[in-house]
């Protein structure tokens, strides 16, 4: 166990815990946009920056990536941090004015409006990379990735037109904090809508009850991955004995 101070409060945490986890375990709020326990930390949104003091040296670190240390003094809020967070929110509000998660963060951090002009009012993607990370780390497919640099950066399937690796599981849509990726099952088709493409996949029908219950590609993937008989997925979970 390691003892440190967060906002004046003495806190104990397991070694290998991040500052963010330690703070949250003690109900200390730190805003984040690119953090999800399902995937490894990434440090891109910069909202979770905190001030750490060690041996009288003070610096800003991303709390999602920085591990607890004995005797560390952490401040999760200061004027300097507030300025950075406020500016990040302003920048994101201008990028994605309609993104609910961003609006909520803005409200919580007291940012009323952005001083920057909106360039694409329908842009919902904050480029947190949760979708690409979940696809790589959890699903293991890397069917989508981030392409291009700077503000041209976007989530895309290879060459914008190859969805072979996508198993239609929908993890990307599930994890997306701003609904930039949407999933919808219509009849026998699953539709995944990304900011720059729309993918359609066939759903498997249960011969007993007739419901379309899972994407065929995902079932094939699971059969192959778990090395089980494809018969396991003949019926939907409800109709299985």
């Amino acid at each position: 166990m390691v003892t440190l101070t967060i906002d004046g409060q003495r806190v104990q945490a397991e070694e290998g815990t991040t500052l963010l986890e330690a703070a949250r375990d003690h109900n200390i709020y730190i805003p984040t946009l690119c953090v999800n326990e399902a995937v490894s930390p990434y440090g891109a949104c910069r909202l979770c920056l905190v001030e750490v003091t060690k041996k009288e040296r003070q610096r800003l670190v991303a709390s999602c990536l920085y591990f607890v240390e004995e005797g560390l003094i952490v401040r999760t809020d200061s004027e300097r941090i507030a300025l950075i967070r406020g500016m990040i929110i302003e920048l994101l509000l201008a990028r994605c004015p309609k993104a609910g998660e961003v609006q909520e963060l803005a409200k919580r951090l007291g940012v009323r409006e952005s001083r920057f002009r909106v360039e694409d009012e329908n842009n919902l993607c904050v480029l947190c990379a949760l979708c690409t990370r979940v696809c790589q780390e959890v699903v293991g497919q890397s069917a989508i990735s981030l392409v291009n640099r700077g503000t041209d950066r976007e989530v895309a399937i290879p060459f914008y037109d190859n969805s072979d690796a996508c198993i239609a599981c929908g993890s990307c849509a599930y994890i997306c904090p701003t609904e930039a990726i949407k999933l919808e099952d219509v009849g026998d088709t699953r539709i995944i809508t990304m900011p720059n493409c729309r993918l359609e996949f066939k759903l498997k029908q249960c011969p007993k009850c007739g419901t379309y219950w899972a994407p065929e590609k995902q079932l094939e993937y699971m059969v192959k991955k778990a090395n089980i008989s494809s018969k396991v997925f003949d019926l939907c979970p409800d109709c299985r004995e």
Partner: protein
Amino acid sequence: MAKQETLKKLGSPEELEAKRESILKGRDTSKPCVTICCGTGCQAYGGVKVTEAFKQEIKERGLEAKIDVRTTGCHGFCERGPLIVIRPRDIFYQRTKVDDVPEIISETIIKGDVISRLLYTIPGTKQKVVRENEVPFYQKQQRLVFGGNGYIDPTKIDDYLAVGGYAALAKALSQMSPEEIIDQVKKSGLRGRGGGGFPTGVKWQSCRRAQGDIKYVICNCDEGDPGAFMDRSLMEGNPHSILEGMIIGAYAIGCSQGYIYIRNEYPIAVRNAEIALEQAEEYGLLGKDILGSGFDLNIKINRGGGAFVCGESTALMASLEGKVGEPRAKYVHTVEKGLWDRPTTLNNVETWANIPLIVSRGAHWYAGIGTENSKGTKIFSLVGKINNTGLVEVPMGISLREIIYDIGGGIPKGKRFKAIQTGGPSGGCIPESLLDLTVDFDELTRAGSMMGSGGMIVMDEDNCMVDIARYFLGFLEGESCGKCVPCREGVRRMRQILDDISQGRGKEGDIELLEQLSAAIADGSLCALGGTAPNPVLTTIRYFRDEYQAHIKEKRCPAGVCKDLISYVIIPENCPGCGLCVKACPVEAITFMGKKKPVILDEEKCTKCGACYDVCRLDAIEIRSGIE
């Protein structure tokens, strides 16, 4: 294979010395040798053709046994290429052409006469300079790292051995323990030449102490700064000096594998590095049991795609691993978990090239050069509005004024100096009032700029500082990897505000917003690209605030650069109607009214390209800005 069989690997420091002696014995130092610069700059001027002409002429005259021809890497004085130095007399010819070759052979080499026409004339005087080291450009330089370029053919390892090459490696392997080497590097005070300025010895020590079965050394030759080319010139001109530094470093740290990361846009550097690796392996200076010491090291070359961000150490390592070149947080240092999560020491080209000097001449000698906290020399790329464009190697602590006026020869066309940007696109602009600033890591940082890549761009009175800031932010916007929000979104917004200001849409509060954005981006970004990106804006606001205010409040560009804020005006009294401008105008905005009658310019049609202004020799066209 036949070649390898005939060449016995050097199995000990003694065998290396014997090899060196036999090379020197086979060389007649009194024999004339034409050294021709074939660095990228001189190649562009025709250095290769001049070399071929020499070889051809010498062959035709049957003088092959009497005259040597040697192509070398960059000598640094790119402004005057192709450069030729005729050794041993060190006669220096510049702007040479193929047609000059027969005369040089007949007059200079055979008769011993100097051809006055090809000598360098000191600008503003009629004084001609005969010898290379008498050229003012070279006189205040201290070319410890870069000097070798002018003497060796980079594709011949024997040339490097002839100037004492690999002696430092032999000393390190046979007389020094790894700890002693690290101690020497620490005591030398060498700091990373890639820009960060981290103490090299401390980095090595941390990596040596880190736990790991395999450790790596990496040479960073990504050099993404478009204005800097010292790494390229060193890799092209003296690759063995870099290899020697890397081998010594790898031995000191305990690494068995090394990588040289070179951007693919540097084809000569890639080729010369490949040749150097091959030759070093042939000689037993790389590979297994180097010089019989039992120490093994392999080095591979990786070519980079030219992304600016890949010069950042963690992005470079990601790229080396075959991933997208994006930086990551360095809370766990790369000396502990770097390439493939193994302890890794990454140094810049120039840093590595300093190592043999420190090992052979000692830390004490090295620490005697430079300032208290910045030791040794630094190579700068001196470009922009400067008479002597090129690479200069100077001791730390020299003043900017000396670099610009004594070495650089001042500002062309008698214009007035305005600012110098140091450190690459994300460096800061330093004004005239700070010209006596001594150049070292800390002083440059104090002035709001940085050592960075070692780029130095000189600007004169015709440069608009808002436009300069806008230009660099545009570059950085395009090179931001886009991973973190402050850099990706913030740099773009800064560029937009600067666009607005330079296009007459600036408003009250813009300067303050730029300052707030700068603070958030500098503090909040993930890596040094974003961390330093605001520098051009912050320093131009700090030193040239009046120019920003003129743009914002008066809609005026004092330097007459920002197109939306200027107009070209014909001065009828000065215009004799010569018609030069009429011909130069690409959009027929100027009408010829007859001889001895002033021309008329149609402001509606004018695109403000400046072509008329450039051709007019009678001051009949003026640039006006704002209400005058």
